[in-house]
């Protein structure tokens, strides 16, 4: 009986003990998470607006939790006093010139205080210190930017609305195109003619293809030209000769040039002939006179032929000619 009694007592004791361990463990875990048992420094800061910060919310430094908010109260009309507990073991990394800003630990998370900045040259924070508060970035800045974006978006959509209205009413090039039927018809025609052109272009390309195929085959002039070195050498030679020719031609041309220049001048015979209208008239006169003279000479000559003195000579000559003609026939 006494043994079972003892056993029962032990079981009850153990049972209760383990139950209490669960409780104590829970309390300890919460306590450590909320810095109830670690040594803390009290640091004060002032905000104009704490935006729903609550006692017990976290204090972060460089994204690491270093403490919790201990007390929030009014200091004056403009200021809200925030007292926070900061772990002593983290305090050596936090400098006196650190700035407290409000932020949140997620998009819709709890409000927290985030300690920002701090320079090495400043001493570390001590118990009872007062630090500056800064303008919070993060969410608010983001929302402000978003607001600007929204305004731009409104402007853009407004412009689009005006644009689409114009389109609908047929204003402007695009609007006219979309609403005017004749333009559409023209466009259709253009497209169909373009289509025809394209077909022809296609044929041309096909021809080109056959041509290039031929060129590529081992026949034809081009191939010879591009492959035969002998032809190329001779071509080069002819080109060189051509160059010589052109040089000669160039010299000739310059001579000609000089000649024509001289022709243009009046101080030589041909120049006078070509350039002087008086001379031309005189020459014309001379030629006319000459013409008359030759006519008269012709008459004279005919008269001379019939002259007895010369008639024998001419008869003889005619006979010789007739014989020569006979010989050539035979």
């Amino acid at each position, binding site marked *: 009986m006494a043994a079972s009694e003892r056993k*029962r007592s032990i079981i009850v004791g153990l*049972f*209760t003990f383990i139950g*209490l361990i*669960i409780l104590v463990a829970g309390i300890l*875990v*919460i306590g450590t*998470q*909320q810095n109830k048992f670690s040594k803390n420094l009290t640091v004060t800061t002032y905000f104009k607006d704490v935006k729903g910060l609550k006692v017990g919310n976290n204090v972060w430094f460089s994204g690491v939790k270093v403490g919790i908010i201990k007390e929030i109260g009014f200091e004056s009309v403009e200021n809200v006093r925030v007292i926070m507990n900061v772990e002593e073991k983290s305090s050596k990394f936090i400098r006196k010139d650190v700035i407290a800003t409000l932020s949140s630990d997620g998009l819709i998370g709890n409000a927290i205080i985030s300690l920002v900045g701090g320079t090495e040259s400043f001493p570390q924070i001590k118990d009872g210190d007062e630090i500056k508060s800064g303008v919070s970035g993060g969410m608010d800045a983001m929302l402000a930017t978003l607001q600007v974006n929204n305004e731009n978006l409104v402007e853009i959509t407004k412009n689009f609305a005006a644009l689409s209205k114009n389109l609908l009413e047929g204003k402007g090039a695009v609007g006219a195109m979309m609403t005017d039927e004749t333009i559409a018809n023209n466009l259709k025609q253009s497209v169909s003619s373009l289509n025809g052109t394209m077909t022809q272009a296609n044929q041309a390309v096909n021809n080109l293809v056959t041509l290039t195929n031929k060129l590529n085959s081992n026949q034809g002039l081009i191939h010879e030209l591009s492959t035969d070195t002998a032809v190329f050498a001779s071509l080069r030679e002819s080109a060189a000769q051509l160059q010589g020719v052109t040089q000669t031609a160039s010299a000739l041309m310059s001579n000609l040039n000089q000649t024509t220049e001289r022709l243009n001048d009046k101080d030589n015979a041909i120049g006078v002939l070509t350039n002087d209208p008086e001379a031309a008239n005189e020459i014309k006169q001379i030629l006319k006179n000459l013409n008359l003279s030759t006519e008269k000479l012709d008459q004279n000559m005919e008269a001379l032929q019939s002259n007895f003195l010369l008639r024998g000579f001419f008869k003889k000559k005619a006979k010789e000619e007739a014989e020569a003609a006979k010989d050539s026939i035979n």
Partner: protein
Amino acid sequence: MAKKIETLLLEFAKIHRFLMRFFREVVSPPYEFKEIIRQCYEIGWKSFPLISLTGFIVGFVFTKQSRPSLEEFGAASWLPALISIAIVRALAPLVTALIASGKVGSQIGAELSSMNVTEQIDAMEVSGTNPFKFLIVSRIIATTTMIPVLCFYVAGIGLAGGYLSIISKDQLSILSFITQVFEAIAPKDIFAMVFRAIVFGFTIGFVSTYVGYYSSKGTEGVGKAANSAVVASMFIVFIEELLIVQVLALMG
């Protein structure tokens, strides 16, 4: 009508006398330590398997049921916080109290009322043992201490069940789970839990012993006492839950 009110008032007076007598007896020696330990064994250890299993199932099922609605707005990662608030603040003491009032309450009610029927209580008085001290005080002390202990177990096991339910879908390390669970609750939540469990334990013990002690003589009195011990203690537990929630909300 007047008679009914009179009976009710008399009942209240009886309850008040019973309560006062308990407080008197609990501080005055001799102390029945052995009997208290025996009752603790009966009430605490014997109902431990049932209550811990219930706690596990509650934690597991509650997590499983909460997941879809949290997932609906992409907050499945807040499950640990939700479970911890639900279990530590509300479910652990309540579930423990309900199961205990079913198991322990009926047991105490039936035991005391059958002692009453068989006149063992009178016999005890004759033999010089104080029956109130031996039967009532020891049981009330046992429930008042054991139900908070059971409640701690339920909280721990319920959270473990919740963790198992979470890792059946998500990958979550136990360390991360514990961090998130304890981030969501404050020390005052744990003290509220302990306070509640003590109140519920005392209520169950008190109601069951009162019903059993003053049960009507006869066989049907035993059944009636066992029944009303369960019903009354559960009912009062709920009313107390309501009041405590209000008071704690006022205290912040």
